[in-house]
Protein backbone atom coordinates (compact mmCIF):
# COMPACT_ATOMS: atom_id res chain seq x y z
CA UNK A 1 0.00 0.00 0.00
CA UNK A 2 1.37 3.39 -0.98
CA UNK A 3 0.39 5.87 1.71
CA UNK A 4 1.00 8.83 -0.61
CA UNK A 5 -1.92 7.65 -2.77
CA UNK A 6 -4.23 7.96 0.22
CA UNK A 7 -3.70 11.75 0.30
CA UNK A 8 -5.91 11.98 -2.78
CA UNK A 9 -8.79 10.03 -1.28
CA UNK A 10 -10.63 9.63 1.97
CA UNK A 11 -12.30 6.74 3.72
CA UNK A 12 -15.84 5.80 2.73
CA UNK A 13 -16.99 6.87 6.20
CA UNK A 14 -16.09 10.50 5.46
CA UNK A 15 -18.12 10.84 2.31
CA UNK A 16 -21.13 12.31 3.97
CA UNK A 17 -23.44 9.45 3.00
CA UNK A 18 -25.56 7.10 5.05
CA UNK A 19 -28.56 7.61 7.33
CA UNK A 20 -28.73 10.92 9.30
CA UNK A 21 -25.48 12.07 7.69
CA UNK A 22 -26.17 15.74 8.41
CA UNK A 23 -25.40 14.96 12.06
CA UNK A 24 -23.94 11.45 12.21
CA UNK A 25 -20.51 11.27 10.60
CA UNK A 26 -19.98 7.57 11.12
CA UNK A 27 -20.69 4.45 13.12
CA UNK A 28 -17.74 2.49 14.41
CA UNK A 29 -17.30 -0.79 16.27
CA UNK A 30 -14.13 -2.31 17.61
CA UNK A 31 -13.44 -5.70 19.11
CA UNK A 32 -10.51 -6.43 21.43
CA UNK A 33 -9.02 -9.91 21.01
CA UNK A 34 -5.93 -11.64 22.35
CA UNK A 35 -4.11 -14.80 21.35
CA UNK A 36 -4.60 -17.18 24.28
CA UNK A 37 -1.12 -18.62 24.54
CA UNK A 38 0.89 -15.38 24.66
CA UNK A 39 1.25 -12.76 27.41
CA UNK A 40 -0.69 -9.55 26.73
CA UNK A 41 1.22 -6.99 24.65
CA UNK A 42 2.60 -5.03 27.63
CA UNK A 43 4.26 -8.21 28.97
CA UNK A 44 5.14 -9.79 25.63
CA UNK A 45 8.82 -10.07 24.70
CA UNK A 46 10.03 -8.87 21.36
CA UNK A 47 10.05 -12.42 20.05
CA UNK A 48 6.50 -12.98 21.38
CA UNK A 49 5.39 -9.89 19.47
CA UNK A 50 7.10 -11.09 16.32
CA UNK A 51 5.28 -14.44 16.64
CA UNK A 52 1.94 -12.75 17.36
CA UNK A 53 2.39 -10.52 14.33
CA UNK A 54 3.30 -13.49 12.14
CA UNK A 55 0.24 -15.48 13.27
CA UNK A 56 -2.05 -12.49 12.92
CA UNK A 57 -0.76 -11.59 9.44
CA UNK A 58 -1.24 -15.15 8.20
CA UNK A 59 -4.80 -15.25 9.57
CA UNK A 60 -5.67 -11.79 8.21
CA UNK A 61 -4.43 -12.75 4.74
CA UNK A 62 -6.78 -15.73 4.67
CA UNK A 63 -9.95 -13.73 5.35
CA UNK A 64 -12.25 -12.60 2.54
CA UNK A 65 -11.73 -8.91 3.36
CA UNK A 66 -8.78 -8.04 1.10
CA UNK A 67 -6.83 -6.52 3.93
CA UNK A 68 -3.45 -4.99 3.23
CA UNK A 69 -0.91 -5.15 6.04
CA UNK A 70 1.28 -2.18 6.95
CA UNK A 71 4.31 -2.71 9.16
CA UNK A 72 3.91 0.28 11.50
CA UNK A 73 7.26 -0.45 13.15
CA UNK A 74 9.00 0.21 9.83
CA UNK A 75 7.11 3.43 9.03
CA UNK A 76 8.59 6.88 9.61
CA UNK A 77 6.99 9.10 12.29
CA UNK A 78 5.15 11.25 9.72
CA UNK A 79 3.45 8.23 8.17
CA UNK A 80 2.46 6.97 11.60
CA UNK A 81 0.94 10.34 12.44
CA UNK A 82 -0.82 10.28 9.07
CA UNK A 83 -2.49 6.96 9.96
CA UNK A 84 -3.61 8.41 13.31
CA UNK A 85 -5.17 11.43 11.60
CA UNK A 86 -7.04 9.06 9.28
CA UNK A 87 -8.23 7.11 12.34
CA UNK A 88 -6.66 3.91 11.01
CA UNK A 89 -4.40 3.48 14.05
CA UNK A 90 -4.51 4.73 17.64
CA UNK A 91 -2.07 7.09 19.30
CA UNK A 92 -1.05 4.17 21.47
CA UNK A 93 0.01 2.12 18.43
CA UNK A 94 1.79 5.14 16.97
CA UNK A 95 3.81 5.71 20.13
CA UNK A 96 4.54 2.16 21.25
CA UNK A 97 7.58 0.13 20.26
CA UNK A 98 8.46 -3.20 18.73
CA UNK A 99 6.79 -5.31 16.07
CA UNK A 100 3.31 -3.99 15.33
CA UNK A 101 1.12 -3.09 12.41
CA UNK A 102 -2.28 -2.54 10.92
CA UNK A 103 -4.24 -4.33 8.23
CA UNK A 104 -6.43 -2.00 6.21
CA UNK A 105 -9.41 -2.91 4.07
CA UNK A 106 -10.58 -1.32 0.82
CA UNK A 107 -12.20 2.10 1.28
CA UNK A 108 -10.80 2.13 4.82
CA UNK A 109 -13.95 0.48 6.19
CA UNK A 110 -12.01 -2.11 8.14
CA UNK A 111 -8.76 -2.06 10.02
CA UNK A 112 -7.07 -4.46 12.40
CA UNK A 113 -4.31 -3.22 14.67
CA UNK A 114 -1.78 -5.82 15.76
CA UNK A 115 0.11 -5.58 19.07
CA UNK A 116 -1.79 -2.59 20.38
CA UNK A 117 -2.97 -2.76 24.03
CA UNK A 118 -4.56 -6.06 22.99
CA UNK A 119 -3.01 -8.34 20.37
CA UNK A 120 -5.79 -7.55 17.93
CA UNK A 121 -8.00 -4.50 17.79
CA UNK A 122 -10.48 -5.16 15.01
CA UNK A 123 -12.36 -2.12 13.76
CA UNK A 124 -15.13 -1.49 11.25
CA UNK A 125 -16.63 1.86 10.30
CA UNK A 126 -19.40 3.09 8.00
CA UNK A 127 -20.76 6.49 7.11
CA UNK A 128 -23.92 7.64 8.89
CA UNK A 129 -25.95 5.85 11.54
CA UNK A 130 -25.49 2.24 10.47
CA UNK A 131 -24.42 0.27 13.52
CA UNK A 132 -26.11 -2.98 12.51
CA UNK A 133 -24.34 -3.02 9.13
CA UNK A 134 -21.06 -2.36 10.87
CA UNK A 135 -21.71 -5.17 13.33
CA UNK A 136 -22.56 -7.61 10.56
CA UNK A 137 -19.26 -6.87 8.86
CA UNK A 138 -17.02 -6.91 11.90
CA UNK A 139 -18.67 -10.06 13.26
CA UNK A 140 -17.94 -11.82 9.98
CA UNK A 141 -14.28 -10.79 10.07
CA UNK A 142 -14.07 -11.89 13.70
CA UNK A 143 -15.60 -15.28 12.77
CA UNK A 144 -13.06 -15.74 10.02
CA UNK A 145 -10.15 -14.87 12.30
CA UNK A 146 -11.51 -17.11 15.02
CA UNK A 147 -11.36 -20.11 12.67
CA UNK A 148 -7.61 -19.71 12.57
CA UNK A 149 -6.55 -18.17 15.88
CA UNK A 150 -6.98 -19.25 19.51
CA UNK A 151 -8.49 -16.24 21.21
CA UNK A 152 -8.23 -15.91 24.99
CA UNK A 153 -11.75 -16.70 26.18
CA UNK A 154 -13.28 -17.85 29.44
CA UNK A 155 -16.85 -19.12 29.71
CA UNK A 156 -17.45 -16.89 32.73
CA UNK A 157 -15.69 -13.69 31.67
CA UNK A 158 -15.81 -13.92 27.88
CA UNK A 159 -12.98 -12.52 25.78
CA UNK A 160 -10.05 -11.75 28.07
CA UNK A 161 -8.38 -8.37 27.58
CA UNK A 162 -5.34 -6.58 28.96
CA UNK A 163 -7.57 -4.05 30.69
CA UNK A 164 -10.53 -5.42 32.69
CA UNK A 165 -12.67 -2.52 31.44
CA UNK A 166 -12.87 -4.29 28.06
CA UNK A 167 -13.41 -7.86 29.24
CA UNK A 168 -16.46 -9.84 28.12
CA UNK A 169 -17.52 -8.86 24.63
CA UNK A 170 -14.42 -6.70 24.11
CA UNK A 171 -16.70 -4.43 22.14
CA UNK A 172 -16.78 -0.68 21.83
CA UNK A 173 -19.72 0.65 19.87
CA UNK A 174 -19.29 4.29 18.92
CA UNK A 175 -21.07 6.92 16.88
CA UNK A 176 -19.39 10.15 15.82
CA UNK A 177 -21.73 13.13 15.85
CA UNK A 178 -21.44 16.71 14.69
CA UNK A 179 -23.24 18.83 17.28
CA UNK A 180 -22.48 22.52 16.57
CA UNK A 181 -25.93 23.83 17.50
CA UNK A 182 -25.99 22.09 20.88
CA UNK A 183 -22.55 23.59 21.56
CA UNK A 184 -23.68 27.09 20.53
CA UNK A 185 -26.88 26.97 22.51
CA UNK A 186 -24.89 25.55 25.45
CA UNK A 187 -27.21 22.59 25.74
CA UNK A 188 -24.40 20.11 25.18
CA UNK A 189 -23.59 19.72 28.86
CA UNK A 190 -27.10 18.46 29.53
CA UNK A 191 -26.50 15.82 26.90
CA UNK A 192 -23.20 14.84 28.53
CA UNK A 193 -24.90 14.49 31.89
CA UNK A 194 -27.76 12.40 30.52
CA UNK A 195 -25.37 10.10 28.69
CA UNK A 196 -23.20 9.73 31.75
CA UNK A 197 -26.22 8.59 33.76
CA UNK A 198 -26.84 5.73 31.37
CA UNK A 199 -23.18 4.74 31.38
CA UNK A 200 -22.25 6.01 27.94
CA UNK A 201 -18.96 7.79 27.38
CA UNK A 202 -18.38 10.98 25.40
CA UNK A 203 -15.03 11.51 23.72
CA UNK A 204 -13.49 13.98 21.33
CA UNK A 205 -12.54 13.35 17.72
CA UNK A 206 -9.48 11.24 18.47
CA UNK A 207 -10.66 9.17 21.39
CA UNK A 208 -10.09 9.17 25.10
CA UNK A 209 -8.84 12.40 26.62
CA UNK A 210 -8.86 14.35 23.35
CA UNK A 211 -10.64 17.63 22.79
CA UNK A 212 -13.84 17.88 20.87
CA UNK A 213 -12.37 19.83 17.98
CA UNK A 214 -14.84 21.00 15.39
CA UNK A 215 -17.84 20.13 17.59
CA UNK A 216 -17.38 16.42 16.91
CA UNK A 217 -18.25 14.00 19.68
CA UNK A 218 -17.96 10.25 19.88
CA UNK A 219 -20.56 8.54 22.02
CA UNK A 220 -19.79 4.98 23.05
CA UNK A 221 -20.53 2.24 25.55
CA UNK A 222 -18.34 1.66 28.60
CA UNK A 223 -19.83 -1.58 29.82
CA UNK A 224 -18.55 -4.65 27.99
CA UNK A 225 -19.47 -7.46 30.39
CA UNK A 226 -22.91 -8.88 31.13
CA UNK A 227 -24.65 -7.62 28.01
CA UNK A 228 -24.50 -9.11 24.56
CA UNK A 229 -23.03 -7.29 21.58
CA UNK A 230 -26.50 -6.75 20.13
CA UNK A 231 -27.88 -5.40 23.41
CA UNK A 232 -25.02 -2.89 23.61
CA UNK A 233 -25.54 -1.87 19.98
CA UNK A 234 -29.25 -1.46 20.59
CA UNK A 235 -28.62 0.86 23.55
CA UNK A 236 -26.58 3.19 21.33
CA UNK A 237 -28.96 2.83 18.43
CA UNK A 238 -31.88 3.87 20.67
CA UNK A 239 -30.10 6.83 22.25
CA UNK A 240 -28.50 8.42 19.19
CA UNK A 241 -31.80 9.39 17.47
CA UNK A 242 -32.71 11.36 20.61
CA UNK A 243 -29.46 13.32 20.45
CA UNK A 244 -30.03 13.89 16.73
CA UNK A 245 -33.45 15.23 17.59
CA UNK A 246 -31.98 17.62 20.22
CA UNK A 247 -29.42 18.87 17.73
CA UNK A 248 -32.08 19.38 15.04
CA UNK A 249 -34.21 21.31 17.51
CA UNK A 250 -31.23 23.48 18.50
CA UNK A 251 -30.50 24.15 14.82
CA UNK A 252 -34.12 25.06 14.20
CA UNK A 253 -33.99 27.37 17.19
CA UNK A 254 -30.91 29.10 15.77
CA UNK A 255 -32.57 29.47 12.37
CA UNK A 256 -35.87 30.74 13.80
CA UNK A 257 -34.48 33.14 16.37
CA UNK A 258 -31.01 34.10 15.24
CA UNK A 259 -31.13 33.65 11.50
CA UNK A 260 -29.18 36.82 10.69
CA UNK A 261 -26.49 36.04 13.25
CA UNK A 262 -26.24 32.48 12.09
CA UNK A 263 -26.04 33.42 8.43
CA UNK A 264 -23.40 36.01 9.27
CA UNK A 265 -21.36 33.52 11.30
CA UNK A 266 -21.52 30.85 8.59
CA UNK A 267 -20.65 33.28 5.78
CA UNK A 268 -17.74 34.77 7.73
CA UNK A 269 -16.40 31.30 8.48
CA UNK A 270 -16.63 30.38 4.80
CA UNK A 271 -15.05 33.69 3.84
CA UNK A 272 -12.07 33.25 6.16
CA UNK A 273 -11.45 29.69 5.00
CA UNK A 274 -11.56 30.78 1.34
CA UNK A 275 -9.26 33.76 1.74
CA UNK A 276 -6.94 33.38 4.74
CA UNK A 277 -3.20 33.21 4.18
CA UNK A 278 -2.32 31.70 7.56
CA UNK A 279 -4.57 29.52 9.63
CA UNK A 280 -4.09 27.12 12.54
CA UNK A 281 -5.53 23.64 12.63
CA UNK A 282 -7.79 24.57 15.51
CA UNK A 283 -9.26 27.63 13.84
CA UNK A 284 -9.77 25.61 10.68
CA UNK A 285 -11.76 22.99 12.58
CA UNK A 286 -13.79 25.66 14.30
CA UNK A 287 -14.66 27.43 11.04
CA UNK A 288 -15.27 24.23 9.08
CA UNK A 289 -17.74 23.25 11.76
CA UNK A 290 -19.79 26.41 11.09
CA UNK A 291 -19.56 25.85 7.35
CA UNK A 292 -20.68 22.25 7.71
CA UNK A 293 -23.74 23.32 9.67
CA UNK A 294 -24.34 26.11 7.13
CA UNK A 295 -24.49 23.61 4.27
CA UNK A 296 -26.93 21.42 6.18
CA UNK A 297 -29.17 24.40 6.88
CA UNK A 298 -29.15 25.54 3.27
CA UNK A 299 -27.14 28.70 3.97
CA UNK A 300 -24.29 27.61 1.67
CA UNK A 301 -25.15 25.94 -1.61
CA UNK A 302 -21.91 25.69 -3.56
CA UNK A 303 -20.02 23.22 -1.39
CA UNK A 304 -20.42 19.49 -0.79
CA UNK A 305 -20.57 18.01 2.71
CA UNK A 306 -18.09 15.35 1.58
CA UNK A 307 -15.54 18.08 0.79
CA UNK A 308 -15.93 19.65 4.21
CA UNK A 309 -15.69 16.28 5.95
CA UNK A 310 -12.51 15.56 4.05
CA UNK A 311 -11.02 18.97 4.86
CA UNK A 312 -11.31 18.24 8.59
CA UNK A 313 -8.81 15.40 8.06
CA UNK A 314 -6.72 16.72 5.15
CA UNK A 315 -5.85 20.01 6.88
CA UNK A 316 -4.19 18.23 9.79
CA UNK A 317 -0.39 18.40 10.13
CA UNK A 318 0.72 15.04 8.74
CA UNK A 319 -1.78 15.18 5.88
CA UNK A 320 -0.62 18.65 4.87
CA UNK A 321 2.99 17.58 4.92
CA UNK A 322 2.30 14.52 2.82
CA UNK A 323 0.18 16.50 0.36
CA UNK A 324 2.99 19.04 0.06
CA UNK A 325 5.60 16.32 -0.02
CA UNK A 326 7.91 17.98 2.50
CA UNK A 327 8.50 18.62 6.18
CA UNK A 328 6.80 21.78 7.47
CA UNK A 329 7.24 23.62 10.77
CA UNK A 330 4.17 25.10 12.49
CA UNK A 331 4.31 28.50 10.76
CA UNK A 332 4.86 26.94 7.36
CA UNK A 333 2.02 24.56 8.02
CA UNK A 334 -0.32 27.45 8.81
CA UNK A 335 0.53 28.98 5.44
CA UNK A 336 0.30 25.67 3.61
CA UNK A 337 -3.04 24.96 5.27
CA UNK A 338 -4.46 28.31 4.18
CA UNK A 339 -3.18 27.78 0.67
CA UNK A 340 -4.66 24.29 0.53
CA UNK A 341 -8.03 25.54 1.81
CA UNK A 342 -8.09 28.34 -0.76
CA UNK A 343 -7.38 25.89 -3.55
CA UNK A 344 -10.00 23.36 -2.41
CA UNK A 345 -12.69 25.96 -1.76
CA UNK A 346 -12.24 28.06 -4.88
CA UNK A 347 -14.17 27.17 -8.01
CA UNK A 348 -12.26 25.19 -10.60
CA UNK A 349 -10.75 21.73 -10.89
CA UNK A 350 -9.66 19.81 -7.83
CA UNK A 351 -5.99 20.75 -7.38
CA UNK A 352 -5.11 17.26 -6.25
CA UNK A 353 -5.81 15.78 -9.69
CA UNK A 354 -3.17 18.01 -11.32
Amino acid at each position, binding site marked *: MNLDDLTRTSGEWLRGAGPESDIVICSRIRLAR*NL*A*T*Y*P*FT*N*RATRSDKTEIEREAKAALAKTSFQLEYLDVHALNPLDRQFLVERQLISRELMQSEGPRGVAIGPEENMSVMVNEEDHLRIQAVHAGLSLYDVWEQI*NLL*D*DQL*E*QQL*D*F*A*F*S*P*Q*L*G*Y*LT*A*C*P*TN*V*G*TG*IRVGVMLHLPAL*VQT*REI*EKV*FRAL*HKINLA*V*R*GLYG*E*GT*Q*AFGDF*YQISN*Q*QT*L*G*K*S*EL*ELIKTLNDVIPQIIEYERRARKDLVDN*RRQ*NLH*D*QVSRAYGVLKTAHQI*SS*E*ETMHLLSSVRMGINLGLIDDLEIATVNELFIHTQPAHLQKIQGRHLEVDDRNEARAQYLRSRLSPGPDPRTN
Partner: protein
Amino acid sequence: MTCEQCRDDATVHLSETIDGKPKEIHLCGVCARKAGIRLPKTPPDLALDAVIQGLITANVGELVGALAQKECPCCEITFRDYRTNLRLGCPVDYRIFGTALLPMLKQFHQATRHVGKIPARRSIDPEPILRMRADLRGAVATENFERAAQLRDEIRLRLRTFHE
Protein backbone atom coordinates in the same frame (compact mmCIF):
# COMPACT_ATOMS: atom_id res chain seq x y z
CA MET B 1 -5.84 33.73 15.83
CA THR B 2 -4.55 35.21 19.10
CA CYS B 3 -6.20 35.81 22.46
CA GLU B 4 -7.54 39.34 22.84
CA GLN B 5 -6.22 39.51 26.39
CA CYS B 6 -2.76 37.98 26.37
CA ARG B 7 -1.86 37.29 22.72
CA ASP B 8 -1.55 33.57 23.40
CA ASP B 9 -3.25 31.23 20.90
CA ALA B 10 -7.00 31.69 21.09
CA THR B 11 -8.90 28.48 21.65
CA VAL B 12 -12.27 29.94 22.65
CA HIS B 13 -14.26 31.69 19.94
CA LEU B 14 -17.55 33.24 20.92
CA SER B 15 -20.03 35.17 18.86
CA GLU B 16 -22.31 37.40 20.86
CA THR B 17 -24.82 40.05 20.03
CA ILE B 18 -24.08 43.30 21.82
CA ASP B 19 -26.50 46.20 21.25
CA GLY B 20 -27.91 44.34 18.29
CA LYS B 21 -24.54 43.99 16.64
CA PRO B 22 -22.73 40.68 16.29
CA LYS B 23 -19.35 40.65 17.97
CA GLU B 24 -16.73 37.94 17.93
CA ILE B 25 -14.57 37.31 20.98
CA HIS B 26 -11.39 35.25 20.82
CA LEU B 27 -9.67 34.12 24.01
CA CYS B 28 -7.23 31.50 25.18
CA GLY B 29 -8.51 28.88 27.61
CA VAL B 30 -6.90 30.57 30.63
CA CYS B 31 -8.33 34.05 29.93
CA ALA B 32 -11.73 32.57 29.06
CA ARG B 33 -11.87 30.87 32.43
CA LYS B 34 -10.70 34.07 34.13
CA ALA B 35 -13.55 35.89 32.41
CA GLY B 36 -15.94 33.40 33.95
CA ILE B 37 -16.84 31.72 30.68
CA ARG B 38 -17.81 28.12 31.17
CA LEU B 39 -16.23 26.05 28.46
CA PRO B 40 -18.81 23.60 27.25
CA LYS B 41 -16.94 22.12 24.31
CA THR B 42 -14.79 19.56 26.02
CA PRO B 43 -16.51 16.41 27.17
CA PRO B 44 -15.88 15.62 30.82
CA ASP B 45 -12.51 13.95 31.14
CA LEU B 46 -13.19 10.27 31.46
CA ALA B 47 -9.97 9.63 33.35
CA LEU B 48 -10.68 5.96 33.10
CA ASP B 49 -7.42 5.05 34.80
CA ALA B 50 -8.38 7.15 37.82
CA VAL B 51 -11.76 5.43 37.93
CA ILE B 52 -10.09 2.05 38.00
CA GLN B 53 -7.64 3.19 40.69
CA GLY B 54 -10.64 4.26 42.77
CA LEU B 55 -12.33 0.92 42.27
CA ILE B 56 -9.20 -0.94 43.30
CA THR B 57 -8.90 1.12 46.47
CA ALA B 58 -12.60 0.73 47.26
CA ASN B 59 -12.67 -3.00 46.70
CA VAL B 60 -9.25 -4.19 47.63
CA GLY B 61 -8.24 -1.45 50.03
CA GLU B 62 -4.60 -0.89 50.79
CA LEU B 63 -2.59 -3.77 49.53
CA VAL B 64 -1.43 -5.93 52.36
CA GLY B 65 0.28 -9.27 52.65
CA ALA B 66 -0.54 -12.14 50.39
CA LEU B 67 -2.53 -10.36 47.67
CA ALA B 68 0.07 -7.66 47.05
CA GLN B 69 2.80 -10.27 46.73
CA LYS B 70 0.79 -12.81 44.77
CA GLU B 71 2.52 -13.41 41.47
CA CYS B 72 1.20 -14.99 38.29
CA PRO B 73 3.32 -18.04 37.41
CA CYS B 74 2.81 -17.33 33.69
CA CYS B 75 3.49 -13.62 33.18
CA GLU B 76 5.15 -13.00 36.54
CA ILE B 77 3.28 -9.83 37.43
CA THR B 78 2.12 -9.20 40.97
CA PHE B 79 -1.17 -7.55 41.88
CA ARG B 80 0.92 -4.58 42.92
CA ASP B 81 2.24 -4.38 39.32
CA TYR B 82 -1.31 -4.43 38.00
CA ARG B 83 -2.24 -1.68 40.39
CA THR B 84 0.60 0.44 39.10
CA ASN B 85 0.20 -0.19 35.36
CA LEU B 86 -3.55 -0.95 35.25
CA ARG B 87 -2.87 -3.58 32.62
CA LEU B 88 -2.90 -7.31 33.24
CA GLY B 89 -0.03 -9.43 31.99
CA CYS B 90 -1.78 -12.49 30.56
CA PRO B 91 -5.15 -14.30 30.42
CA VAL B 92 -4.29 -16.40 33.49
CA ASP B 93 -4.25 -13.24 35.67
CA TYR B 94 -8.04 -13.26 35.66
CA ARG B 95 -7.88 -16.52 37.63
CA ILE B 96 -4.86 -15.67 39.81
CA PHE B 97 -6.21 -12.26 40.88
CA GLY B 98 -9.86 -13.27 40.59
CA THR B 99 -10.84 -12.46 44.17
CA ALA B 100 -9.61 -8.88 43.75
CA LEU B 101 -10.80 -8.39 40.17
CA LEU B 102 -14.36 -9.70 40.47
CA PRO B 103 -15.70 -7.00 42.83
CA MET B 104 -14.15 -4.36 40.54
CA LEU B 105 -15.73 -5.92 37.47
CA LYS B 106 -19.05 -5.95 39.27
CA GLN B 107 -18.80 -2.24 40.01
CA PHE B 108 -17.54 -1.20 36.61
CA HIS B 109 -19.75 -3.41 34.43
CA GLN B 110 -22.55 -4.17 36.90
CA ALA B 111 -21.98 -7.79 35.99
CA THR B 112 -19.56 -10.65 36.52
CA ARG B 113 -20.71 -13.05 33.83
CA HIS B 114 -20.23 -12.87 30.07
CA VAL B 115 -23.29 -12.74 27.87
CA GLY B 116 -22.73 -12.67 24.15
CA LYS B 117 -20.56 -14.15 21.48
CA ILE B 118 -18.79 -17.46 22.14
CA PRO B 119 -16.00 -18.63 19.82
CA ALA B 120 -17.11 -21.45 17.53
CA ARG B 121 -13.71 -23.11 17.90
CA ARG B 122 -12.89 -25.04 21.08
CA SER B 123 -10.98 -22.77 23.48
CA ILE B 124 -7.51 -23.84 24.49
CA ASP B 125 -6.46 -23.79 28.17
CA PRO B 126 -3.66 -21.23 27.92
CA GLU B 127 -2.04 -21.92 31.28
CA PRO B 128 0.27 -24.89 30.46
CA ILE B 129 1.63 -23.13 27.37
CA LEU B 130 2.00 -19.77 29.11
CA ARG B 131 3.94 -21.57 31.88
CA MET B 132 6.22 -23.06 29.26
CA ARG B 133 6.70 -19.62 27.74
CA ALA B 134 7.73 -18.35 31.20
CA ASP B 135 10.27 -21.18 31.41
CA LEU B 136 11.41 -20.29 27.91
CA ARG B 137 12.03 -16.68 28.93
CA GLY B 138 14.03 -17.95 31.91
CA ALA B 139 16.08 -20.28 29.70
CA VAL B 140 16.87 -17.47 27.25
CA ALA B 141 17.79 -15.13 30.12
CA THR B 142 20.24 -17.66 31.56
CA GLU B 143 21.56 -18.49 28.08
CA ASN B 144 20.41 -22.07 28.39
CA PHE B 145 19.75 -22.28 24.67
CA GLU B 146 19.43 -26.05 24.53
CA ARG B 147 16.55 -25.91 27.03
CA ALA B 148 15.05 -22.96 25.14
CA ALA B 149 15.04 -24.86 21.85
CA GLN B 150 13.48 -27.86 23.59
CA LEU B 151 10.70 -25.69 25.07
CA ARG B 152 10.00 -24.05 21.69
CA ASP B 153 9.55 -27.48 20.12
CA GLU B 154 7.28 -28.60 22.96
CA ILE B 155 5.09 -25.52 22.63
CA ARG B 156 4.77 -26.02 18.88
CA LEU B 157 3.91 -29.68 19.33
CA ARG B 158 1.25 -28.95 21.97
CA LEU B 159 -0.42 -26.32 19.82
CA ARG B 160 -0.39 -28.59 16.78
CA THR B 161 -1.83 -31.61 18.63
CA PHE B 162 -4.56 -29.47 20.22
CA HIS B 163 -6.04 -28.71 16.83
CA GLU B 164 -5.65 -32.16 15.33
